[in-house]
């Protein structure tokens, strides 16, 4: 077996019905992995941008990009080598936890407290996926009630 490596692929697609299904069907139909997927329209145009985090051998990654290219509504496929990659996470804590500790931790991970309620606080961090993962490990001791990760967004340098 060839070594499997993590890869980030960006796909520019025409904004039209069922285009997302075409992409995800391709991955499931051919047995490729999706670790995370984000999608949003590109401003001022008819296109959307998907950022897909996947993994596979060099040959598999090459096939993924080629097969994506074959889909009719796909304009461009970028297989990133040198990229800036960020992911956001929202975490809900009980208000009874040590808020100042949590706040300092969030700051260390490009984040802050974004909502304070009677019983809970919600924090946001935005950082490289690996660092977000670290953050989520560290905050376990503050008894997080809910965690949401956004999946990666990436740009080539």
């Amino acid at each position, binding site marked *: 077996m060839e070594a499997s490596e993590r890869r980030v692929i960006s796909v520019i697609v025409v904004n039209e019905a*069922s285009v997302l*299904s075409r992409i995800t069907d391709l991955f499931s139909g051919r047995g490729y992995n999706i670790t995370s997927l984000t999608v949003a329209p590109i401003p001022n145009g008819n296109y959307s941008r998907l950022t897909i985090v996947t993994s596979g051998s060099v040959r598999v990654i090459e096939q993924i990009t*080629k097969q994506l290219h074959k889909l009719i509504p*796909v304009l461009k496929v970028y297989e990133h080598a040198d990229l800036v990659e960020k992911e956001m996470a929202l975490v809900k804590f009980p208000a009874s936890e040590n808020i100042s500790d949590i706040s300092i931790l969030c700051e260390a991970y490009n984040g802050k407290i974004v909502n304070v309620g009677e019983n809970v606080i919600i924090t946001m961090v935005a950082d490289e996926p690996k660092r977000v993962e670290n953050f989520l490990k560290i905050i376990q001791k503050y008894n997080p009630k809910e965690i949401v990760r956004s999946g990666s967004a990436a740009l080539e340098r």
Partner: protein
Amino acid sequence: MQISGAQMVIEALIAEGVDTVFGYPGGAIMNVYDEIYKQDNFQHILTRHEQAAVHAAEGYSKASAKVGVAMITSGPGFTNAVTGLADAYMDSIPLVVISGQVPMSLIGTDAFQEIDAVGISRSCTKHNYLVTDAKELPRVLKEAFYIASSGRPGPVHVDIPKDVTAQIADFDYSIELELETYKPHTKGNPRQIKKAMEAIAKAKRPLFYLGGGIINSNAAYEVRDLVHKTGIPAVETFMARGTLSHDDDLLISMLGMHGSYAANMAMSETDLVIGLGARFDDRVTGKISEFAKNAAVIHVDIDPASISKLVNADYPIVGDVKNVVKEMLELSSGVNAEKYEPWRETVTNFDTLHPLTYHEDTDRLKPQWVIERVGELLGDDANISTDVGQHQMWAAQFYPFSRPRQFISSGGLGTMGFGFPAAMGVKAASPEKTSINFTGDGSILMNCQELMTAVEKKLPVINIILNNNYLGMVRQWQTLFYDKRHSETDLSVQPDFVKLSEAFGGLGYRVRTKEEFDAALKDAVEKDVVTFIEVMVERMENVMPMVPSGGSLFNMMLLEKKEK
């Protein structure tokens, strides 16, 4: 001009030069059928099953090199057609398949005969559309024909809700297509082509590996020129049969699981594979790590995703094989055909050692004899289609093909039931040739209702049923790899095929001897009516040689030699 969506479908088909549509009406597509009734620009052939409509359109497309068109209704009409779509997708056959859908207002309500058709066809079409507004129809239909026939061809499915076919909108088919995201790459990179030609000139044992893409791109005659100019021997895939003529000295034969010993050995010994429109299918390569192990690889293909998918290409060339082969011809003066004489001799010796043959050692007819005999009697005058199984492999091995588009068979998907309806499509496209369908006693029952279509529309396909009372290919694997446990493959309980054909108004013959076969075939060709010729053949005959699944090409099971 302001017309209904249904009229737009008709106008678009006329504008595309369609002369034959295969189909089956139903509730959701009725508006379009109403317009078919009112026109006489193209003929509609009513098959007796939607699957057959799509297979017939495939056969029509394969024989004519045009886009095949099929029309079906929603729900079960569509799901019946899915096998045909998948078949066309696997074999890169350009089709436009138009289905009716429940009205827009009912979509998503589990309405009568509603199914998410585009959701189902997404993974077995090149592209598909659900048309939600009649305004979109001219563009969608024009795109459908363009996408189906350009680049790597394939089926395009257009799903049209019933209310959209009734909606009135402006129709202008002269619109320019703006497909910013779809631009097939048809011209090969000149530098890569030059490098490939240099590699060919340097090679000692080069080998052409010819694939079905040559047929699709109408490049067979250019490929013949290139092969002859360079003097390099060639093997054909199943899909490429007819690229070179059977009597061409440079054609070794078919390679792969049931390829000839010489073809498979040549592929194992070559130092340079020149792949033209072939995709290194597992039935061709056998164990991939042992495939052409010591060879560099030139790979010409219109589909970039086919290149280096399974076998790494040292000289990848993305382009239409016809364009690329023309460029290769221009640069072929550096190739010295004399140089390959020792290699050609080696290949000839392989063939002398284990020629593609069979033994006539039983009282019953041998299926291979039947195929060879049809070749002797009809040869170039027949178009050959097949179903799937042993008879299909024997047809590919033993029929003397002399031209491209003469052999029409389900290669990629391996669809039993393909042959008869496909042969009807072939006959509709090419009425001057005799249309032969080699089939088996298993396959023929999977679309035998098409006898009715063939009688009604006067499509005199001659179905030659090689009857061994077995699901033969599966039986062969059971014999060889499952210790002769013939699980559910004994088809001894059968209809009377002669009466079956006669019941529909066709001809039927049952033959057991060579003389009877010759007489039946002669009679059928003369009478020009759809025919079943049931040939009682040796039951336990195996297709040989055989590369067991996952084995290396050079490790073939061979036909046992017999003392004469």
